[in-house]
């Protein structure tokens, strides 16, 4: 199935992946009834190519983790999925990314609508400098998702409950969101993201700024959210990927090396680069 295994040098392996224009991702990129499909996605920063022919599906009610060494393009790829890269002028994306079958880079796709459908949680907790309530309500108001105040209150409460934050903040909804602890802030950001009922939630290293307890909370939360949402998470913690995801995709220097069920990736990865990375044999 693959002869790279026999190679005894990760440098050689790396070259075979990176220098080989015909390299094909190892493992099953496709899932049944995907929420989002990506095919042959290339991303360029000006003349520099950052992502090479990445194809992968994001399944329904699954958490897919994207791992890989720094600069491998996992965050860049994630940001393509809600066109967050649009804000970077020199960034250009080719290939097909479809949300429920609709091409998100099509002319007819409105980016505001897309971002309402594909929520995002960022590396550093970034609540708005507003009250807890307003943080969650902002997107709802923006998109006019609540018909009246009581409906808005309801959405805010539900979102905070889903984010597991309600019990901690229900007595200080009018206090600044920036006054919460790091973990609470990140859960507030998650509540903000789920308040507008997205179809897919992207998380870009959501726990990298948090302590282990806060991290554990968020991971638990991700697991619960999976019941309702599809989630794509970029993480540099392999343990976290192993814990929270059902599928894992390993990126290396802009290429998607391997994708497969998380259990397989972490016990018997197919590709030597994946193995080398997860066992800590190169960085």
């Amino acid at each position, binding site marked *: *199935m693959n002869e790279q*295994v026999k190679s*005894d*040098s*990760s440098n050689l*392996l790396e070259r075979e992946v990176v220098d080989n224009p015909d390299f094909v991702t190892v493992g099953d990129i496709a899932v049944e009834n995907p929420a989002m499909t990506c095919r042959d996605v290339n991303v360029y920063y000006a003349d520099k190519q950052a992502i090479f022919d990445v194809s992968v599906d994001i399944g329904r009610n699954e958490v897919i983790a994207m791992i890989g060494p720094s600069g491998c393009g996992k965050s860049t790829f994630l940001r393509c999925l809600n066109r967050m890269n649009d804000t970077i002028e020199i960034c250009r994306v080719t290939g097909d990314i479809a949300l429920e079958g609709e091409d998100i880079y099509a002319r007819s796709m409105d980016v505001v609508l897309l971002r309402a459908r594909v929520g995002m949680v960022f590396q550093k907790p970034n609540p708005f400098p507003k009250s807890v309530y307003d943080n969650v309500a902002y997107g709802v108001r923006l998109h006019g998702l609540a018909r009246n105040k009581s409906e808005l209150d309801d959405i805010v409460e539900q979102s905070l409950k889903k984010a597991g934050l309600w019990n901690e903040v229900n007595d200080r909804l009018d206090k600044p969101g920036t006054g919460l602890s790091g973990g609470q802030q990140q859960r507030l950001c998650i509540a903000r993201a789920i308040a507008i009922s997205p179809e897919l939630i992207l998380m870009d290293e959501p726990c990298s700024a948090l302590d282990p307890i806060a991290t554990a909370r968020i991971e638990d939360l991700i697991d619960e959210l999976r019941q309702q949402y599809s989630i794509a998470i970029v993480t540099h913690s*392999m*343990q976290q990927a*192993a814990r929270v995801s059902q599928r894992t995709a390993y990126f290396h220097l802009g290429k998607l090396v391997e994708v497969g069920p998380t259990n397989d990736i*972490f*016990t*018997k*990865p197919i590709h*030597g680069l994946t*193995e*080398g990375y*997860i*066992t*800590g*044999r*190169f*960085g």
Partner: protein
Amino acid sequence: MTTIQGEGHIFTRFDDEMKQLHSTVVGMGVLAVKQLRDAVDTLRTEDTEKAHDVISNDTKLNQLDIDADEQITTIIAKRAPVAKDLRELIAVGKIVSELERAGDEARKIAGLTIRFYEGTSRPPNEEILRDIYTLADYVSGMLEKSMSVFDDLDLNGAVEVLNMGLKLDDQLQSILRHLSTFIMEDSRNVGNFVDIVLGIRALERFGGHAKNIAGHLVFIKFGFDVRHEGIDVIVKSIRES
């Protein structure tokens, strides 16, 4: 031990710890083989004193078993190993208990010496014991082979050990037939016969441990468990991957 990739871990301490564990296991393998050889020697030379030494030496093996388990626990706790590292640690954990039990089997052989040559009972005749010598050579060869596979992870060697395991059954059958002819020749041999069958049984178990070790080695390399598969299935799987 060589890693799958030419390079070691980024944490060189991780490599050091794995090497340390590896040498502990290799030491156990060497000790287990030596115990068996020594035990059989005492039988041959009727040296009951040395037989006592062999028995007491078994505690060394037990101690190494405990050491190895400790090292494994520490590494898992510290390094959160995955993939090959994880498989290796799990397999090594099993390998050390196989080795420890192989040592127990060697102790049983040394027990035979004491039983035969200490006290008043009549020792068995040399002819009967020859089968034990042959079998002991064979199974100690199996363990040696397994341990060398452990060192270089050359799975051809592992398949060889598995095959030797299959042949071990045939050998056992012929040895038992051979033994029964002795009983028919001289019924006085019956008294020692039970002891000798138990000794042969111990050697067979020793070979079984060597075979299990070979199975664990296949798991280290490919991540599937072959202990309960037929040899042809195993060989097929190895070829496939």
